[in-house]
């Protein structure tokens, strides 16, 4: 009985679709590597080793995954209301900029400083996302075009802020490093004391982990994922937002304020992407730098949301998958000489198959028959 149930889940449910797509993604990646003259098994083995052969690597994977999980949640949240948040990139940028400013200018104790930074950054992200939502609700302009515009405005705004003498270190293209009290790294200061250096040298596993910029970001990411699941599935607000995503006309008929839902959804999505930017600054970089091009956290978040089937837990899974591939993939160049970008091909293929449930079902059925 359970066997058939599992089969059902795999054949009809989103889980089977995702898993089949992931497998096909790696298969296509392997074929591409083979054609290019590399041994795909060697290349994938190098990625796997690059992910988990050292405690430090695992730690780096978590650090890489953190912003991707949160921007993934942002895109996923909006998608559940039927909105396509291409703007996670820009919301990330304003979040990072705001956090960097709050971390540099405001002087309060740590217990206040960290939540304050995060709150301000999330508010900035919420404004950025909410603006796109408002324009959609009020004027009917598609959120895809407004968020694309807002991404660029965010990028130039952030770059402009660095030209301000009080915020940007002139001539370096970077902002001033912000204060200790706004950071969420673990043992950041202690690591450079003598005791810290001694500890890292003498403890094999923990010391190795501490060589990476360990921070609390992942805790926040998991917390956000839980909150998203809770809001969407256990609250009236979540029910309304999902109803609008499912069928806006029916939702309107059922007495749900569709316009308000659109604005709310985009604001929450924006605040999440803003938090991702803030945590990246508070945990890893401690400053913002001039952006020549988009960094891609928001765009990668779209991939994460799609692979994760637009759910909280799914985004966590997909974020870790993407983060691991990104970090592990950066090593195959040295290990086997194969281009790192095979990762983009794998991820792109996974998404392409996820876009085509019809094809996947045909494949699964033919295998069964």
């Amino acid at each position: 009985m359970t066997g058939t149930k599992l089969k059902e889940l795999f054949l009809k449910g989103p889980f089977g679709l995702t898993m089949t797509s992931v497998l096909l993604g790696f298969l296509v990646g392997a074929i591409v590597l083979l054609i290019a003259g590399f041994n795909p098994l060697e290349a994938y083995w190098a990625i796997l080793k690059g992910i988990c052969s050292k405690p430090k690597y695992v730690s780096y994977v978590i650090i890489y995954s953190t912003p991707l999980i949160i921007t993934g949640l942002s895109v996923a949240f909006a998608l559940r209301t039927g909105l396509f948040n291409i703007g996670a990139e820009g919301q990330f940028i304003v979040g990072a900029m705001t956090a960097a400013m709050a971390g540099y200018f405001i002087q309060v104790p740590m217990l206040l400083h960290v939540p304050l930074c995060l709150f301000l950054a999330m508010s900035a992200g919420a404004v950025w996302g909410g603006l796109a939502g408002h324009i959609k609700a009020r004027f009917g302009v598609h959120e895809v075009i407004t968020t694309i515009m807002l991404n660029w405005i965010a990028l130039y705004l952030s770059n402009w802020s660095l030209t301000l003498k009080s915020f940007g270190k002139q001539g370096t293209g970077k902002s001033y490093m912000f204060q200790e009290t706004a950071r969420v790294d673990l043992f950041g200061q202690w690591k450079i004391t003598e005791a810290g250096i001694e500890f890292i040298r003498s403890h094999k596993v923990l010391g190795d982990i501490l060589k990476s910029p360990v921070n609390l970001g992942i805790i926040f990411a998991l917390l956000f994922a839980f909150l998203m699941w809770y809001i969407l599935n256990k609250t009236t607000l979540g029910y309304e937002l999902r109803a609008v995503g499912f069928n806006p006309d029916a939702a309107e008929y059922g007495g749900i304020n569709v316009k308000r839902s659109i604005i709310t959804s985009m604001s929450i999505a924006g605040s999440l992407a803003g938090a991702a930017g803030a945590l990246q600054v508070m945990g890893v970089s401690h400053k913002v730098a001039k952006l020549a091009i988009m960094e891609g956290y928001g765009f990668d978040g779209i991939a994460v949301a799609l692979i994760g089937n637009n759910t909280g837990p799914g985004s966590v899974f997909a974020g870790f998958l993407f983060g691991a591939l990104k970090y592990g993939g950066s090593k195959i160049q040295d290990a086997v000489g194969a281009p790192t970008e095979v990762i983009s091909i794998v991820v792109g293929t996974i998404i392409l198959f996820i876009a085509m449930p019809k094809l996947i079902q045909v494949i699964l059925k033919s295998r069964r028959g």
Partner: protein
Amino acid sequence: MEPVIQDLGFIIGTTLMYSTPLIFTSLGGVITERSGIINIGLEGMMYFGAFAGAAVAYFTQNPWLGLLCAALGGAFWGLIHAIACVSFSAEQIVSGIAINFLGAGSALFISRLLFDGATQTLTVARKIPQPLDFLFGEGKMFASSGFMDLVFNRFATVYLAFFLVFVVWFVLYKTKLGMRVRAVGENPEAANTLGISVIRIRYGAVIMSGFFAGLGGAAMSIAVVSRFSNTLISGHGFIALAAMIFGKWKPQGALIACLLFGAAKGFEIFLGSKGVPVAGDILAMLPYVLTLIILVGFVGKTTAPAAIGKIFDKGDHS
């Protein structure tokens, strides 16, 4: 020559140069969306075209062959998008996002194989020529760096882009084929009933959009600059997409929107070269702010083709 006039020529010339890649790509957007298929993968197609154009132009020393291969490369990803969206009823935006990863990823993958592990090509020996120089000899037609020279002595791709705006407009509005494309984008069921092959029209339109996006990429990599690098196309495909929507899904509208984005770039470069103490970042931001304002104030909704993004399944209707 009056310096003011010369400056004006410089600005117009730079505007034209930077608008061109956007115009090609934006036209591609018009074609596909008019047939009812959203193509958010323009960025990836443009990215791949920019690489293919520069790589082929480098190895063959023939910029025209580069331009053609760029278009064909873009068309290949158009074909993939068409297979997904038309034959397998894919979510069009999701498929487009996939194309963006695949187009950029495969371009960089091949680049690393061909150019010794680098994510950029080497400089091409010959860029797309400037027809006036080619026809009359350098500086013969107009005095060098004069107004006329700055405005009209441009790369062939600039002329080609303007010509194609006319062609796309003509085909869409004045020919049977164009009428069919528009019919399919507005009401595929009715078009199907009238005996138009929705599937064939959409395949053609999506592949053509890739073709145009590929041209756009090459117009960047072998005309505006002389090589491909991994940061060259960062976001231009998305700007072209926005320009198409801004231009109300019309070729002539897209042209104007692209010129606006190009003009902002032109001013930015001009003021930068003069050392004018204007915040370049604020200036660069302006066209995007302006687009938002115009969209909110003047364009609004209801201009998109009616059947856009909707899955057409022949079996359900006939």
